[in-house]
């Protein structure tokens, strides 16, 4: 496509759709990093003329889904979040009457941590899983062809947004009969949608944190990969805490507003320990992976924010990316006096009884220690300007200053 760059400038703004695509049905497996980019895909497909009702996601992960549609499709052992992709694709293929299955190979992600980290790559398994699971549907015969479905798996590097139009055009031009300009416009729309969604979520989280501050109420931070929001992967541990009355926030959507950042990280920036609030090099020296970087940053946030008095870490069985982070994350959190709990090795089995018991134990500790933790962390921030909305309430008198 050597000449694309010449005419793309002329046609980048505005422009009509080349053809009517309102009848096309596109299925997207709800797996791995689709959990953090789904808004992009919706915006992108809508901009190409596919109505929202024709954009179909697979169901949440479940044992039944895997058993029914995924078994026998995978030829290796892997972490659970990858394994279940077979069920998602099988379900889409068998039950949704689609024209296209779109399973993006998300190589890198847009991340608010860009700048002071080396890269924002996905775990290698994330993009590779698609080629892996696809093979399970090709090994005996081409199952996609049999069902009259086109399988498209574009390689997408969100960290290099200027390459997205090309990557998506290459992979979708035949399946959707699109022009480069249409794809370019659609990418822009998709990215806008994603950004809007992301900032809305951060705003919501800020509101929760402000409420905690105003009511001097402890809050729980979940540190996990985005797909742990899938009930089949994260086992709804967050919901358990909510049902006990705790506001629960996720690391991915913590607020990043300047006033809040100055309050929490300002002193360390002034001391030259870090270059910006989003610099994690003081605790993590190999910042290649976007999700990992964000988990590390979330831990730093928790270590400084007074009303996050407990961090709950979720991790899937055989997660290779999480493995080297266990000790550093725990230390980042615990050194600050914040409570740390880990639910590791999550897989398909969901021992709700034992999860409940652990949650209750955690509840006991959080109740007991939160007042001290809040007070001690506030003390550390004494000298700094409190951001608006966090009208700080003086800690209760009887809280001690040491553990």
């Amino acid at each position, binding site marked *: 496509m050597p000449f694309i760059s010449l005419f793309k400038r002329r046609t980048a703004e505005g422009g009509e759709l080349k053809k009517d695509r309102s009848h096309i049905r596109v299925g997207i497996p709800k797996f791995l990093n689709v959990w953090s980019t789904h808004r992009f895909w919706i915006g992108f497909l809508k901009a190409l003329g596919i109505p929202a009702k024709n954009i179909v996601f697979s169901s949440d992960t479940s044992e039944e889904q895997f058993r029914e549609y995924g078994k026998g499709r995978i030829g290796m052992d892997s972490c659970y979040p990858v394994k279940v992709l077979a069920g998602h694709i099988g379900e889409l293929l068998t039950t949704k009457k689609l024209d296209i299955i779109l399973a993006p190979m998300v190589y890198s992600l847009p991340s608010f941590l860009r700048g002071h980290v080396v890269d924002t790559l996905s775990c290698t398994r994330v993009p590779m899983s698609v*080629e892996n699971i696809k093979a399970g549907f090709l090994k005996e015969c081409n199952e996609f062809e049999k069902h009259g479905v086109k399988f498209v798996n574009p390689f997408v590097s969100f960290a290099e947004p200027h390459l997205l139009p090309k990557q998506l055009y290459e992979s979708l031009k035949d399946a959707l009969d699109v022009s480069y300009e249409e794809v370019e416009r659609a990418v822009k729309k998709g990215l806008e949608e994603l950004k809007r969604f992301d900032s809305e979520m951060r705003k919501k989280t800020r509101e929760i944190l402000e409420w905690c501050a105003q009511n001097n109420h402890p809050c729980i931070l979940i540190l996990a990969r985005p797909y742990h929001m899938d009930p089949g992967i994260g086992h709804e541990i967050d919901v358990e805490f909510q049902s006990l009355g705790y506001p629960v926030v996720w690391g991915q959507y913590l607020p990043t507003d300047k006033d809040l950042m100055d309050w929490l990280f300002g002193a360390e920036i002034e001391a030259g320990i870090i270059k910006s609030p989003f610099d994690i090099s003081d605790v993590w020296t190999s910042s290649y992976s976007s999700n990992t970087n964000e988990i590390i940053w979330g831990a730093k946030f928790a270590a400084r924010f007074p009303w996050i008095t407990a961090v709950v870490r979720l991790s899937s069985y055989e997660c290779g990316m999480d493995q080297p982070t266990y000790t550093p994350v725990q230390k980042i959190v615990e*050194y600050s006096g914040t409570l740390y709990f880990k639910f590791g090795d999550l897989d398909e089995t969901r021992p709700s009884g034992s999860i409940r018991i652990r949650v209750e134990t955690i509840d006991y500790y959080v109740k007991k220690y939160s007042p001290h933790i809040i007070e001690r962390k506030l003390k550390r921030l004494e000298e700094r300007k409190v951001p608006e909305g966090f009208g700080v309430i003086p800690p209760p008198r009887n809280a001690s200053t040491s553990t």
Partner: protein
Amino acid sequence: MEVIQQYRAYRPRPLKGEERGKVKIVYGGLTWKHERLIQGALENAGYKAEPLPEIKRADLDIGKELIDTGACCPTTFTAGNLARFLKEKSEREGREGVKEGYVFVTIGACGPCRFGQYHESYERVLENLDFKDFRMFLLDLLQMEQNEGGLEITMPLTFGLVYSMFLGDLMTDMEYAIRPYEVIPGETDKVLKESIELIYDRLKNRPSRGKKWGSLLWHVTTPYFVKVLKEVRELWDKVEVDRLRVKPRVKITGEFWLQTHEGDGNYNIKRWLEQEGAEVIPPPIAVWMDYLIYLSLWKMEESREFVEKFWLKKAVIKLLLNLYHFTYNRLRKALNNIPNTLPPQEELRSLAKPYFHHFLAGGEGYMLIGKALYAHLNKHAHMICELSPYGCMPNTMSIGAMQAVLGKYPDLLYAPIEIKGDAEVHALSRCQMILTEAKKRAQREFEEALERTGLSVEDIRNYEDERPELRKATYKVPHYGYAGTSANYVMHVAKLMGRV
């Protein structure tokens, strides 16, 4: 716990310029041959250097105890190995002696998989052994700079390391091509050792041509290493081989550390295969660098519209690639082309294309599929033995993708072996089953070649008596479209005899 305390990551004390030549650089992760040659390159640059001890089964258990659970087996083995080194050294030289007298240098970049985070596990080792003030430095492949002048990555050192890699690879290829056919058992290993010592000595004493352009020019143009290899060839000339032994050729692929390794870390699988009657095709490290350079070229091509001076940059990378291959082939030639060529990356990429996107980096990327198909379709091997570490992220993914390949090429003999450390019997017996089939194929090929040429083994033996150079280890037998060495040899003799 102190309220205001915040956790900070491990930072090594700097290694100062004046410490160079006093403090020993410790490194590891490759074969003993490569490591000995690297030692020569480092000593040439004025460092004291020592490879880590050979990996042992015990390292896995030590590693498991010290680092977070769930690590892949190369991480666990190498972390345990470092721990054993620290323990054993401190018993002999005292903790202070170890802290002051050694620094550990490891590659720390490459990003996408755990490889980029190995050092986190090494840190757990230092922490749990109370060795936090032992110095460990990360060499980022792209930013080879280290602090305070103690570790300085100069042109001569970089070239020394590249040549160590090339020469280590070539000697490994010689070793595996010859040992299965050696007439006097043990001779290959003896000659190999002598060769490595000779090359080590020359690497160490290579002339200095300054630190910049002079050195660059010298390393790119010099016949110095070709001359060294000619001396090496004379050593190998004396090894007598019997190429009429029918052996299946087994190509090793898999995760970088595991496929390169020669020891307990991969059940000593290359030696084991030889004992089981196979000829092994080992994977050169140079392929890996070639792959990385190609990846960067293709990445740049993908974003050509956004790259300033694209054509110039492309020309520079192409030139670099040409030089790389030219040098490798020039060295191969000095050994009469017995070592294998580097597989063509463009072709590996296109073979793998329907199954694996070439930008999916991590593990072997597209190479796992590309190499297997390349060897199979070009009849370079009877069987592929793919080594995958327990708990590996990328490799398990490409193995899964191989399902579709095997659906299309059902006659590809493929043995994916998971290395766990404690499941040796299971892994080896799986491999053996496929090897049995490969043996049959090698035998069939051999018989077919005899039939085609009308020769008998006795005819060939008689002919060998007239032309004893045929039995030299350094005699090159061309490829006649058979995977097996013996079948190609039959064809070659027939050709010499004017039969085909």
